[in-house]
C-alpha cells in the first residue's frame, strides 16, 4: 500500500497547438521572426523589396505603348502624369518587337521560323523527356539536323537530302567492307567515303538533281538572320553539338593513347586559354583574309563552328569532373563484367558521370547561350546589335532601358527554363534514396 504509483488510466483529450505556432502567425514566427537578428533582417529586406518595386513597377506599368517616337512618348507622359521621370516608353518595343525577334528575315516567311521552332521542340522532346515521349519522335530528332537548316535558309531540298545521304553511304560502306576487309578498314572507309562525298560530290549531285526535279523553297541569305532568332539558332547548334564533342574530348583526355590524349589536351587548353571574342574575330576577320577572295564561307556558319568549339572545350572539362568523381570500383566493376571499353562507357561510366555533371553542364549551356550576344561585336545583328541599330533611328535615339529590359526578359525566359529543367532532371535521376 505504501509505494503506490500513479498510473493514468485514460488518455488526456487532444489539445490544439498554441495559436502562435500554427497558421499564418506560426509560419511567420518560424520563418521570418524567429529571433531578434532574423527579425531585423526581415524588416530590412522587406523595406528593400518595397523600395525596388516602388521604383520599377510604376516604371513598367505607367508607360506609353502607342507612340511612334521618343518625343511622342514624352508628350504622353507630360499629358498623363505631368512628368517624364520614371515612365517606360514601350512604344519602341511595340513597333520593333518583330524585328527584335526575327531580325531582317522576310516578314512573309516568318512562318518558317515559327515552324522551325515547333520542329525544334518536337525534336527535343525525346531527348529531354525520354521516359514520357513516344518512341516514334526519335525519327523527328534524326531528321532534324537536315530539316532545320533547310527551313531557315531555304533553297533546294536536294542539298540537305544529299548531306543526309552521306550518312547512308558511311553505313553501307561499313556493312560492305566488314566481311571483306575487316573492321578497322571498314571503320576507316565509313569515315573517309562520306567525307569525300560531302566535299567532292554532294554539291554537284544536288545541283544536277535540282536541274531535273526542281523542288525547293525561297532561299534566305544569312545576312538577313538576326534578332533573338539568331541567338536561339546559335545557342541550339552550339549546345547540341558541344555535348557530344565534349564527351569525346573528355574521354580522349583520359585515354592511354598518347597522340589522342595530346590532341585532346592541346585542343581543350588552347580553346580555354583564348577569349570567345578572339575566336569570333578570327572567324569574321582573319578567315576572310586567309581564304581567297570570292570564297563564300557563310559568316553564321563560321560563328557556329567557333561557338561550338568553345563550348565543347568547357563541356569536356565539366564532364571530366564527373568522370573523376566516380570511384575506381565502377571502372573495375565494368572490367570484371567483361564489358569492352565502349560498353563500359555507355552502360556504367557515362550515365553516372553525366548525372554528376548536370549542374555544370547546364551552367555551360546557359553561359554559351548568353554569350551569343557577343556576335554583335563582329557586326551581326543579334538583339544587342539591333538595339544599337534601333537607337540610330532618329525616332528612337536616346531610348535605352526599355530595349534592354525587353531583351533581358527574352533571355530570362529561356535561361530560367533551362535551369528548371536541370533541376527536374536531377530529381528524376536521383538514386540516393
Amino acid at each position, binding site marked *: 500500500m505504501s509505494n503506490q504509483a500513479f498510473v493514468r488510466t485514460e488518455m488526456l483529450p487532444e489539445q490544439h497547438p498554441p495559436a502562435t505556432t500554427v497558421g499564418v502567425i506560426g509560419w511567420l514566427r518560424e520563418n521570418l521572426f524567429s529571433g531578434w537578428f532574423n527579425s531585423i533582417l526581415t524588416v530590412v529586406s522587406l523595406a528593400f523589396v518595397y523600395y525596388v518595386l516602388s521604383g520599377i513597377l510604376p516604371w513598367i506599368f505607367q508607360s506609353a505603348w502607342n507612340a511612334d517616337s*521618343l518625343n511622342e512618348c*514624352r508628350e504622353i507622359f507630360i499629358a498623363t502624369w505631368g512628368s*517624364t521621370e520614371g515612365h517606360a516608353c514601350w512604344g519602341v518595343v511595340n*513597333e*520593333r518587337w518583330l*524585328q527584335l525577334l526575327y*531580325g*531582317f528575315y522576310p*516578314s512573309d516567311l516568318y512562318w518558317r521560323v515559327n515552324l522551325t521552332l515547333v520542329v525544334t521542340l518536337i525534336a527535343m522532346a525525346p531527348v529531354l523527356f525520354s521516359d514520357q515521349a513516344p518512341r516514334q519522335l526519335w525519327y523527328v530528332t534524326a531528321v532534324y539536323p537536315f530539316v532545320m537548316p533547310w527551313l531557315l535558309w531555304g533553297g533546294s531540298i536536294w542539298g540537305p537530302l544529299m548531306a543526309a545521304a552521306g550518312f547512308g553511304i558511311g553505313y553501307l560502306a561499313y556493312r560492305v567492307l566488314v566481311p571483306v576487309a575487316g573492321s578497322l578498314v571498314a571503320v576507316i572507309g565509313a569515315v573517309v567515303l562520306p567525307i569525300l562525298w560531302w566535299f567532292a560530290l554532294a554539291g554537284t549531285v544536288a545541283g544536277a538533281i535540282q536541274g531535273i526535279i526542281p523542288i525547293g523553297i525561297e532561299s534566305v541569305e544569312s*545576312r*538577313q538572320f538576326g534578332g533573338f532568332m539568331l541567338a536561339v539558332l546559335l545557342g541550339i547548334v552550339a549546345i547540341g553539338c558541344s555535348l557530344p564533342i565534349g564527351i569525346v574530348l573528355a574521354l580522349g583526355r583520359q585515354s592511354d593513347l598518347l597522340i589522342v590524349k595530346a590532341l585532346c589536351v592541346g585542343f581543350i587548353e588552347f580553346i580555354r586559354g583564348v577569349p570567345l571574342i578572339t575566336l569570333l*574575330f578570327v572567324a*569574321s*576577320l582573319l578567315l*576572310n*583574309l586567309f581564304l*581567297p*577572295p*570570292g570564297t563564300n564561307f557563310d559568316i553564321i556558319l563560321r560563328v557556329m563552328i567557333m561557338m561550338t568549339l568553345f563550348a565543347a572545350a568547357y563541356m569536356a572539362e565539366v564532364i571530366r569532373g564527373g568522370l573523376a568523381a566516380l570511384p575506381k570500383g565502377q571502372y573495375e566493376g565494368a572490367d570484371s563484367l567483361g564489358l569492352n571499353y565502349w560498353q563500359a562507357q555507355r552502360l556504367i561510366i557515362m550515365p553516372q558521370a553525366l548525372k554528376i555533371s548536370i549542374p555544370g553542364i547546364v551552367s555551360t549551356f546557359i553561359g554559351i547561350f548568353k554569350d551569343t550576344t557577343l556576335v*554583335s*561585336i*563582329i*557586326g*551581326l*545583328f543579334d538583339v544587342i*546589335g539591333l538595339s*544599337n*541599330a*534601333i*537607337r*540610330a*533611328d*532618329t525616332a528612337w*535615339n*536616346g531610348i*535605352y532601358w526599355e530595349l534592354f529590359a525587353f531583351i533581358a526578359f527574352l533571355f530570362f525566359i529561356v535561361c530560367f527554363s533551362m535551369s528548371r529543367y536541370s533541376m527536374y532532371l536531377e530529381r528524376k535521376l536521383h538514386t540516393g534514396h
Partner: protein
Amino acid sequence: MKKSVFFGALTVAGLVAGAAAAGTVDDIKARGKLNCGVTTGLVGFAAPDANGEWNGFDVGVCRAVAAAVLGDPKAVEFVPTTGKTRFTALASGEIDMLARNTTWTFSRDVDLKFEFVGVNYYDGQGFMVPKELGVSSAKELDGATVCIQTGTTTELNLADFFRSNNISYEPVPIETNAEAQQQYLAGACDVYTTDASGLAATRATFENPGDHVLLPEIISKEPLGPLVRHGDNEWGDVVRWTLNALIAAEELGVTSANISEMSMGTDNPEINRMLGSEGNLGEQLGLSADWAKNAIMAGGNYGELFEKNIGESTPIGLARGLNAQWTNGGLIYSPPFR
C-alpha cells in the same frame, strides 16, 4: 615536295585573287548587287527602319553608286561593319566600298592601302556642356570631367587640345554613344566630346535640348568619305565620279524633281555631258550613258540627301556650314565634268 605543292597552291590562290579583284565593276554586274559597308547604326548616317530598309546620308551614297552601276538603287547588300571590322571587310573583298563616316587620314590612305574617293561630310570634334555650367569656350574647361569614347581619334585629339592649352581634365572612358548619353545626362561628366554631327544628333534626343550648348571650338579635322581598295582604279573612278555627280548636280541645279526634263537636253553643255545627252562620259567609265541620271534619281543630289537625312528640317538639324557648296562659302566642290 610538300613545300612546292604548298607554294603552288598559294600562287594559284594569289592568281585567283588577282583575277577576282581585277574588275570590281564586272563582279558587281555579274552579282547584280553592290556590297556596301555601312555602320551598324549611326543617327542620320545609316540606320535600318522597322521594315529593315536602310536609310541615311551614307546609305544615300551606296544607293547612288548602285544606281549608277546597276540602274537600281535597291540593288545594294548593306553589310553592317563595326569600327573594328570595317577595314578588314574592305581589304578582304567582303564589301566593294565602305561608306561608314570614316575619317580620311594619311595612314588609312597610305598604310592600310585604301583609296578615299572624296569627302561627303566635313566633320570636326566639338564639345557639349550643360548650359548651367556657364562655360562659353572650351578653354575654360580646366579640371572638367570629360566623357570620351575609347579607342577613337577623338581621345587623342582631346589630349592634344588640353595639353597645348595647358589645362587639365579627367577622362571618363565610355564605349558607345548611347552609353555616353546616359552618363552625360546622369551627370557623370561635365563635358561630352565627339564629332560635332554626333553631338548635334545626341542633343536633339534630349528632353530639353535647350539646356545644353555646343561650344564654338572645333578641335580637329574629320573629313568623312567613301573609300575603296587600292588596286582597282576603274572602280575607284566609278565611286569618285558618282559622288562628284551628286555634288555637281546641286551646283548646277539638277534635282530629282527636274532631272527627267533636264536629261532630255539643256542649254548647259556640262549638264548635258553629265546626264549623258552629249558626249560619252558613261562609256569612259564602263557604265551606261544615263549613269549619273540614275545616281541622282536614287535619292536626289548632294543637297537633297543632306536635307532629307541630317539637314535643318530633320530632328538632327545640322546646318550646311563647311558642307555648303563652294559657291556658298563651303568646301563641297566637284571637279568639272569634261
